[in-house]
């Protein structure tokens, strides 16, 4: 039974199978589902979610949470709009300032985590709240008008082979993150820190420095995501909060896909789109508005539960190797990403 599962890749590729099943089921259930429009909507709307998920993924690999990615995106997007609308900044200047703001937020997160030694979960939760307040301070509670310049709109609002350009941005960012995490020494260091912080330090990895860098990258990428979102759908006060949960669900669910037990880029993106297929299909069927948060909440819990049980079953498998030593020695300590991420 187990060998059948692994042959078909039901464990590593369960997301792919689920995606196919969702498409078939919803395709039969509602004629509106299997249309190009559905896929274009999912592609463009989920590209931003994917970018935020990648922002979150990088510190998660190193065992650091970044709960501020959503509000960071929100604030950055609004500031870029405000700089152009209220202060008359040129588009390039506003874009540079926006990315710099995202990076700065990441830097502050890193400072709180590394220098003040506050747990990243608490640190970024606090920063997230501060950013929510900053949104109101910066805008004076008035949504700034969408800049009218052609450049601002064409940043995101032109099509590329039928799809919005943002999916190309997502793919470029994903390739960069993939390269960083899987093909550079830096990526190895981040994975090592996430896998066993103490052992990483004893192997000469500068744990603090790399944790800080991961949070800075996260802040910068979240900022870019925020700018793109605002250009695509217009400024709003609340979009940031809605991006955080799907990102978390995708990162955890992604760690059970393709390379199980390892937070990885393509697993994360696969998860983002499969989750979106589910939400979109159910939305078409039922038309209720509470579906997305409900679905994402359940998906997050299910993803973490799955990652934990995966770690457990892997530890069972290891016991089959021949052990000459007493069983208590063989009792392995298994750190599934879901668990180490929390520590």
């Amino acid at each position: 039974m187990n060998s059948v599962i692994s042959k078909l890749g039901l464990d590593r590729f369960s997301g792919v199978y689920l995606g196919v099943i969702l498409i078939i089921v919803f395709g039969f259930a509602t004629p509106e589902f299997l249309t190009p429009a559905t896929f274009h909507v999912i592609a463009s709307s989920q590209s931003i979610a994917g970018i935020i998920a990648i922002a979150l993924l990088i510190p998660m690999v190193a065992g650091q949470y970044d709960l501020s990615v959503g509000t960071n995106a929100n604030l950055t997007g609004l500031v870029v709009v405000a700089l152009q609308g209220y202060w008359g900044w040129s588009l390039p200047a506003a874009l540079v300032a926006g990315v710099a703001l995202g990076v700065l937020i990441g830097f502050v997160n890193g400072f709180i985590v590394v220098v003040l030694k506050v747990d990243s979960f608490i640190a970024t939760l606090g920063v997230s709240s501060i950013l929510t307040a900053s949104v109101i301070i910066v805008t004076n509670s008035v949504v700034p008008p969408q800049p009218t310049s052609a450049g601002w709109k064409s940043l995101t609002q032109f099509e590329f082979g039928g799809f919005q350009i943002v999916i190309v941005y997502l793919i470029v960012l994903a390739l960069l993150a993939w390269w960083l995490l899987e093909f550079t020494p830096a990526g190895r260091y981040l994975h090592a820190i996430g896998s066993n912080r103490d052992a990483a330090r004893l192997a000469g990895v500068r744990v603090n420095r790399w944790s800080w860098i991961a949070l800075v990258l996260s802040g910068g990428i979240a900022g870019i995501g925020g700018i793109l979102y605002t250009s695509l759908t217009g400024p709003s006060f609340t979009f940031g909060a809605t991006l955080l949960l799907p990102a978390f669900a995708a990162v955890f669910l992604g760690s059970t896909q393709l390379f199980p037990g390892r937070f990885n880029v393509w697993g994360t993106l696969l998860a983002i789109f499969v989750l979106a297929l589910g939400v979109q299909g159910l939305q078409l069927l039922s038309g209720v508005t509470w579906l997305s948060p409900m679905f994402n909440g359940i998906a997050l819990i299910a993803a973490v539960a799955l990652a934990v049980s995966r770690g457990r079953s892997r530890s069972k498998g290891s016991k089959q190797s021949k052990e000459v030593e007493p069983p208590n020695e063989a009792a392995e300590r298994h750190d599934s990403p879901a668990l180490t991420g929390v520590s």
Partner: protein
Amino acid sequence: MSTEEYALDVRSMTKSFAGKAVLQDFDLTIEPGEIHALLGQNGSGKSTFIKALAGYHEPDAGSFVAVGGKDLAFGSPKDSFALGCRFVHQDLALILDMSVLDNMFMSSSFPMRMGVVDKREGRRRAKRALETVGLDLDLDTFVKDLRPAERTGLAVARALLSHNNETPSVLVLDEPTASLPTIEVQALLATVRRTAAAGVGILYVTHHLDEIPNFAQRVSVLRNGRLVGTWKTAEISHRELVEHLIGEALAAEMNTQRDKVDSDLSASPAIVVSGLQAGRLEDFSISVRPGEIVGLYGLTGSGREEILPAIFGSLSADAGTIVVQGKTLEMGRPDAAIRLGIGYMPPDRKTLGGFMSQTARHNMTLLSMKQFFRGGFLRKKPEVAEAARWFERLNVQPQKAEEALLSTFSGGNQQKILLGKWLRIDPKVMLLDEPSQGVDVGAKLEVHKQIALAATNGTAVIIGSSDVEELASLCERVLVLRDGHVAEELTGARVTVKDINTSFHSDINREGLVHA
């Protein structure tokens, strides 16, 4: 005496792992109120016996154990507890930030009355248990404010608490004095005497032979899984005990079999440590030449455990300077130590040494990836080839499993992989903490071979170990540590199992308790 009258009656207990008996035909009896000392080197089968008694190991068929006259069902911690077996381990499992009272009821839970915790009844019982062991502690004191012997006493008192107000039959104390300062030991021994006087049979496991006279009534010695003998304490000398403990013949044989290559005495030192202070360690200095293997011996609490992490920088030192081939090392910085050519294998490979959720290859190459990083990408092919080379060189089993997770290997093979990780970068100084702990015999030999080979190639090696035979077979020089100081330095022909043990137990001669 018949079985009914013994607090503990063990007959022909055998326990095998993977077909290999680690405990064979072991017999032991303890009378109520008796203090019975159990001696044995690491790996002699002591811990296996204790774990079997506690129900964590299931002994082989044919073994028989009775506790207070009742047959013990094997493999059930619950039954072991119900029949009245209690255990106090070296790690006392006390919570320092909680009160004496709360610690007392941590495992057995507070008495309840009408659905709420009955504090008054709890205080009464706690007080009575403490009185049994002769301790008068304020129940509201935090454990962190207690003296070390009082903490052990508290753990003993907690073990004596029972649900049905019956006195437990047997109390096993596993090296309770290992980390106690000398001055505290007498206080603890008094506590144990009081406990025995209450009718409890006590199995007292220790490395300190000097504690036994005038304390235990009988003493048993385990060696290589077999009982060497049981004697009345008054009828056996210290020297006889040491010989039984380490096996005179074996020790002599081992010494002649060693073929250690002496390092070049004229070479300038690879590493010079001076005035190192950390934790219990006081003013430690050492200088090691390239190719030399130096051993550090000492029990928990002797300061031995602090030395290697403090040199490497994973433990922050209070004072001291370290010079590696003329360059002063920045203290407390493992990355700086590695840059100067120092490697360190920590004692606990699961929590400190390795990345269990990563592949063997990733574990092996983490320290240096430069050679695989070409044109902005880590190249997989040369990296896998490198890992494969080390797999072959270290004879890692299963072969060609470079892409398997580290957690899937056996302890010995994990240790080989982690040793390979360091040998790969060709360190000038290699620090090894308990390099063969929890490792099977074959892997231990392989690890020793690789350490010797590294030394031959010019690496200065320092090994910290509680395994005397390991040190005797590998080292050119052994420092014996006691109470935070180097008690003696053994060189040349004196680096033998016997001399290390004699040196270690020599405080007894000094105090003249038993004539050797």
